[in-house]
């Protein structure tokens, strides 16, 4: 805030730099922030949105100051993929009832990674339902806690009744390479889904 003004001669940032976004969802404590942090070039930041509990994101708070408000926090990270391309990874707010926030999150997203703790499969159902409803491409990432995969991928697919067209990958949210491969799987899946939709 107290930085001196920049010299006018300094070339400005290229206005052609563009951003893309990937959503990371999953139940509370499944490792979303760890996943984001393992590949982000910055420590994951937290941003907050103040909203009314009842609102679907369209209410004007200033008109109804007595409405009960709530704060939704989400973590996000940033990955510079090129000199003019930045990818943002947004972790969804954990609370299921904040759908309005999710709408904002998924708008314009390439796709979503749904992280799953195989010991608590049910935690991710609401996220999967939401992405299917919105037609957002997603992959399921089975996060290996303690480095161990407790269950086989096909068993999980059956248990969760996940369509065979949805990729399920195993990952370790703590490791950059694993996170990277999960993201690659998602982007490939999103591109395939887009091309399939275009061919139809």
């Amino acid at each position, binding site marked *: 805030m107290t930085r001196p003004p920049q010299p006018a001669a300094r070339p400005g940032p290229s206005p052609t730099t563009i951003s893309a976004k990937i959503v990371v969802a999953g139940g509370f404590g499944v490792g979303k922030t760890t996943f984001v942090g393992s590949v982000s070039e910055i420590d994951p930041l937290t*941003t907050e949105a103040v909203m009314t509990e009842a609102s679907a994101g369209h209410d004007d708070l200033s008109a109804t100051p007595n409405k009960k408000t709530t704060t939704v926090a989400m973590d996000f990270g940033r990955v510079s993929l*090129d000199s003019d391309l930045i990818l943002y990874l947004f972790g969804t707010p954990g609370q299921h009832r904040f759908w309005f926030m999710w709408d*904002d999150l998924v708008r314009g997203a390439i796709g979503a990674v749904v992280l799953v703790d195989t010991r608590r499969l049910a935690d991710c159902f609401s996220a999967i339902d939401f992405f299917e409803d919105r037609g957002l491409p997603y992959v399921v990432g089975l996060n290996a806690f303690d480095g161990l995969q407790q269950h086989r991928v096909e068993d999980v697919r059956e248990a969760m009744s996940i369509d065979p067209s949805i990729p399920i990958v195993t990952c370790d949210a703590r490791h950059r390479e694993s996170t990277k491969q999960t993201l690659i799987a998602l982007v490939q899946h999103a591109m395939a889904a887009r091309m399939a939709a275009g061919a139809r």
Partner: protein
Amino acid sequence: MTSGPDDASRRQQEPTFADVMNGFSLDAKRPRKRRLWGRKRDEEEQAGSPAAPPTPPPFPATSSAHTGDTGFAGSGYGGYATGPIEPVRDEPVLPAAPSGAAAVRPYAWTRGRTKSGFDLAIETLVSTSRQGREQLGLLQMEHRSVADLCDQPRSVAEVAALLSIPLGVARVLLGDMAGLGVVTVHQTASSTGKEPDLALMERVLSGLRRL
């Protein structure tokens, strides 16, 4: 009035209200105790007089912060009976006096607005324009904080997180600044349509592979 500090606006108004008070009510400047003792009769007088009632409501509305008793003593039924217009006219003064200080609630920065004229997604990048850098010293304080931060492209979410302001506030601020030409709003993957296009996904894919 909208940009002045709270104290300044209060100082400007106070003589006005005090004058009005003096004009109608002799005990406006009396010490607190006397006012309280005389309250009942005073209110009866005000209720009976057609000229007096409009004066009490605005006074407690603006000055209750520094004289705790006026809110109690002045907002009697005399005020409720006849002065509905005065408080309405007075109320916008309170939220509309942001000082830019840290103690000010974030929504005061936006003067209560929750919508921005620009469609800013959470990942939309903004960067300080050349005009913004040249005018840095002339910008209002909160805009200057943003302009400092956006010397390199930052997303709306980053601006909110790094300035510790809610997302909605960052959106309104950035929308204002974009309107002033102080910041440039960059394209996002979805700017052109509803969904990111294949070419961009291809770039993201190869970018991820290079990581």
